[in-house]
């Protein structure tokens, strides 16, 4: 696995090498990897599911046939599920009042109205 990428945040699998093998010891489990699918260049990667694999390289190899053999796809990400940090389900109440605070919802602003009103007023002055 090489990291000579234009985007240093993303490691890219080099196809011409086999990659570094991992050793899975007795009693140790394979990892679960979350798979993110990119439909076109520049688009967000969307979570589509997970695969079970010994390492990231094979996870990517599996993900290709698992999640990218029908829909349009230009790239995939895999992330070890264990590397994802999440809130405890009990703490869901932190988000409880969100629905009351519609003024925080960007789609709630009636900006265009104000802009048009302003434009009209400046136009009238000229």
């Amino acid at each position, binding site marked *: 696995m090489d990291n000579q990428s234009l985007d240093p945040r993303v490691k890219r699998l080099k*196809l011409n090498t*086999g990659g570094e*093998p991992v050793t899975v010891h007795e009693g140790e489990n394979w990892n679960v990897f979350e798979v993110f699918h990119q439909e076109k260049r520049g688009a967000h990667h969307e979570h589509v599911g997970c695969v079970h694999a010994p390492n990231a*390289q094979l996870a990517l*190899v599996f993900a*290709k*046939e698992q999640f990218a053999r029908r829909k349009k796809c230009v790239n995939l990400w895999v992330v070890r599920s264990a590397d994802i940090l999440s809130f405890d389900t009990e703490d869901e109440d932190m988000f409880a009042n969100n629905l009351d605070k519609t003024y925080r919802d960007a789609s709630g602003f009636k900006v265009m109205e104000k802009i048009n009103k302003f434009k009209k007023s400046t136009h009238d002055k000229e």
Partner: protein
Amino acid sequence: MTRNEAISQMLTAMADDALIQGHRNSEWTGLGPIMEEDIAFSSMAQDKIGHAWALYRILHENLGGTEPDRFAFLRGEKDYRCCHLVEMPNGEYDFSLVRHFLFDHAEAVRWEHLQQSTFEPLALTARKLKGEIKYHTLHANAWITQLCRAGEESYARMQSALNVCFPLALGIFEPSPEAETLLVNEKIYAGEATLKEQWLDRTYNILSVAGLNLPSEGSVTPAYGGRKGYHTEYLQPLLDEMGYVFRLDPEAVW
């Protein structure tokens, strides 16, 4: 031998290899070591059968051959031109993986050359299949590297599978001097000897990283005969099973 006869001979060998290899690999469906691998391996088996179909279509549409389904399922055993490597029964997964590795790298080298073929239908198909074949070799490389370093038993099994597969795989490059000379002169393809050299280089690069020893070519007897219609005892039973449903009613419309 005419130009078209030589092309037909080469395409039949390539297509039969892909069809029989695809069928063999599809026998793993539902039995693969883990679900993810089962799906990937089955999907590639399906790709192989698609490659065979693409070639049978060129034979039919551009070279006056029989309709693809009938050609694939109704020929006698002696009329198949596949190599012995693809005919061998699956056995253990190590064998199937090493066969997949050796076969798919051979295909990759061949199809890469064919992108420049002066026989246009083949060059077009070669460009179309490029990405699929790239994935097949990526998959094979990943498993070879992984399993060769996964402990003594795993390493020993991979090496012994390689020893079994190597002479069989040399059969992919069985020479057919008359057709080859014609095809090379017409720049339709590069010739078996050239392809074999590149295949040896490429597989060696992966195998040496994996710590496996590729047997020397001089120390083994290549499994020739398939290109001339001489097959192993395993082909006929495979053909019986593969064509069973089709032969029930060859005129049926699907």
